[in-house]
């Protein structure tokens, strides 16, 4: 389970460490296996060597040699092996062979009529000490012959006892090692390998815990700084290796805080700079006698007002995340709607509110909620068809604001509606719907209102949706997280 998680996150420090550790472990185990195999091999060689020496000694000791009285020449040489040993030489499956010759190469005794052929590479050897010959495997033979040439010095000259054997001991040993010992080892080392790996994971996780704690602390400090609080990451409990990172982080944070406050000051300043002349413009316009194009000019000024306000809000929203706390959504929206009724009535819209009797508790930032729902209502009012002159209340178009017990706010209008194809676009920045010939939105929107709504809802962990309203118009729905 743990391992899978580790291997999935490729960038994790932990998984990197574990991977490297596993690699090292695998190499070490490989070397151990190789060494064991080599040792087995060497042991086999030594055993073979020893065996051949004993055989040679046995043969030498069993020799009875008759020599010519005058010349000292060997007249008769017999090998008096115990019946058990003799049987072993006769049994070809055991692969033993002996051949005895004198210095001239004259055969004195042999275990088998074919012995000369088997020990052929040793026939020319005239060593003064017992010598081992390792021969290549010959055609048709599965393994090479192992040969010992043992010189025996007699008064009349040396004779040579050649003992050979196929490397059966080697084979048996290696085979038994490979089929028995190594799997046994694997049975032990396999779990050991896994155990070591798990222990390594646990240890590394533990060693990395300060890093995790630090990451959490850093993210909290980052949030605080973005909120405009002064904060930095403390160095207590921080591993020495990571301290430079923390120091660098704190430095960057301090710079960031400095530039953030400068930016905020600039934003506020820009707002002031833009809004006051706009207010003057609006006031000047209201003081003027009626003139041609007044309506259009008023609309332009209003549009500019809204744009400046929304730009400012959008910028600030990115810097100041919502601070969420449980609150009564119904009460908040009721108060907001009450405040917007006069504006709605001016536009000839009957703004209505509906909510359950009981409080609707959700996680929210009341000011942000008012901004989001207010934007939707403002939109709904601006998109509602204007009643004709002389129409009384009964003919006003309605905008309904409903809060449901599930923590949803619906804002329904009877406007032109949003085309299905455009619905996914409405929450993006500067989307304005159909524009007129001069490229202006038909309803004087700045195109930021719904982007602000979407951002606020994102910060609330909630949802923002748009749908067509039955019978014409649009329904915007905001879904909050209940608390």
């Amino acid at each position, binding site marked *: 389970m743990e391992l899978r998680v580790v291997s999935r996150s490729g960038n994790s420090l932990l998984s990197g460490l574990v991977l490297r550790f596993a690699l090292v472990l695998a190499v070490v185990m490989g070397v151990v296996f190789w060494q064991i195999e080599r040792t087995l091999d060497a042991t086999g060689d030594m055993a073979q060597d020893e065996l051949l020496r004993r055989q040679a000694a046995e043969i030498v000791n069993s020799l009875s040699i008759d020599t010519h009285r005058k010349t000292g020449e060997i007249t008769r040489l017999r090998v008096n092996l115990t019946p058990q040993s003799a049987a072993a030489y006769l049994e070809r499956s055991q692969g033993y062979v002996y051949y005895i010759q004198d210095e001239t190469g004259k055969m004195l005794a042999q275990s088998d009529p074919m012995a000369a052929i088997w020990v052929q590479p040793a026939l020319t050897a005239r060593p003064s000490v017992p010598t081992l010959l390792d021969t290549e495997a010959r055609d048709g033979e599965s393994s090479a012959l192992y040969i010992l040439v043992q010189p025996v010095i007699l008064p009349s000259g040396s004779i040579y006892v050649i003992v050979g054997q196929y490397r059966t001991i080697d084979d048996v040993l290696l085979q038994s090692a490979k089929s028995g010992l190594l799997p046994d080892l694997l049975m032990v080392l396999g779990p050991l390998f896994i155990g070591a790996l798990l222990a390594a994971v646990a240890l590394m996780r533990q060693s990395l815990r300060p890093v995790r704690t630090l990451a959490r602390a850093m993210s909290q400090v980052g949030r605080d700084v973005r909120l405009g609080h002064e904060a930095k990451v403390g160095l207590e409990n921080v591993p020495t290796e990571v301290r430079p990172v923390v120091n660098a982080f704190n430095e960057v944070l301090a710079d960031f805080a400095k530039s953030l406050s400068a930016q905020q000051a600039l934003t506020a300043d820009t*707002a002031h700079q833009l809004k006051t002349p706009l*207010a003057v413009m609006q006031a000047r316009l209201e*003081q003027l006698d009626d003139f041609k194009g007044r309506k259009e000019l008023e609309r332009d000024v209003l549009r500019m007002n809204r744009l400046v*306000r929304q730009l*400012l809000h959008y910028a600030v929203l990115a810097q100041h995340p919502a601070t969420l706390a449980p609150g009564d959504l119904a009460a908040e929206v009721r108060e907001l*709607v009450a405040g917007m*009724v*006069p504006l709605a*009535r001016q536009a000839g819209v009957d703004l209505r509110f*509906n909510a359950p009797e009981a409080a609707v508790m959700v996680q929210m930032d009341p000011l942000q909620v008012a901004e989001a729902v207010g934007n939707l209502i403002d939109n709904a009012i601006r998109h509602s068809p204007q009643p004709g002159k002389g129409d009384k209340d009964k003919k006003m178009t309605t905008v309904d604001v409903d809060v449901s017990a599930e923590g949803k706010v619906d804002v329904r209008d009877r406007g032109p509606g949003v085309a299905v194809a455009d619905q996914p676009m409405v929450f993006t920045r500067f989307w304005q719907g159909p524009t007129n010939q001069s490229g202006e939105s038909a309803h004087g929107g700045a195109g930021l209102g719904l982007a602000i709504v979407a951002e606020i809802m994102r910060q609330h962990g909630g949802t923002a949706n748009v749908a067509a309203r039955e019978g014409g118009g649009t329904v915007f729905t905001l879904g909050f997280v209940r608390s």
Partner: protein
Amino acid sequence: MRILVIEDERALAGFIEQTLRQHGFAASVAGTLAEARTLLTQPFDAVICDRRLPDGDGLDLVKELRAAGNHVPLLMLTALGLPKERVAGLEAGADDYLPKPFSLFELLARVKALLRRSGGPAGLVLELGNLQLNTLHDTVQVKGKTVGLGKREVVLLRHLLQRAGQVVGKDVLEQALYGDTDEKSRTALEVAIHRLRKVLAGVDSGTNLVTVRGIGYLLEEAAK
């Protein structure tokens, strides 16, 4: 009635002053906090105050005034229109907050509403359309003729007139009618509203009593 306008942008201050004068108010203009402090040694019926002034934040002046026990109705006027800043203004003791840019008509309406709510000299007679309510004697007149209204209806009318053009919540009106007793009854409020509406429609009051569904009621001047 005297209104002090604290605004450093000359053109804007000029327009505000002009509008107020046109509607029967006496207006004085201060371009700095220092000037405002000097002028505020005299009594004013309302103050319109900008936030960013050459010598400081208008908010500080509001805090000073409130700390000194001066409860003059005060409208903050500012470019800083973000919700959190609006709240800061209201918490400092401002009675209302109007973000720039604004309509002079809205400014005027808000100043009038502030004066009505303050219950000062201007609040003795609440006026809307042809309707006049004397808060001292709880008498209602239309075009000079007294209109007979029950006690409850007068209480309702007073609350609606104090917030003319704005929605008054059902809970506020119920509280006004029945206090904190648990015997509040929606029907009783609806009956009282129905009666009041009938009377207002019978005389030429020049007002509309509008039901705002789900929230409360609103008294507005009828379109002429």
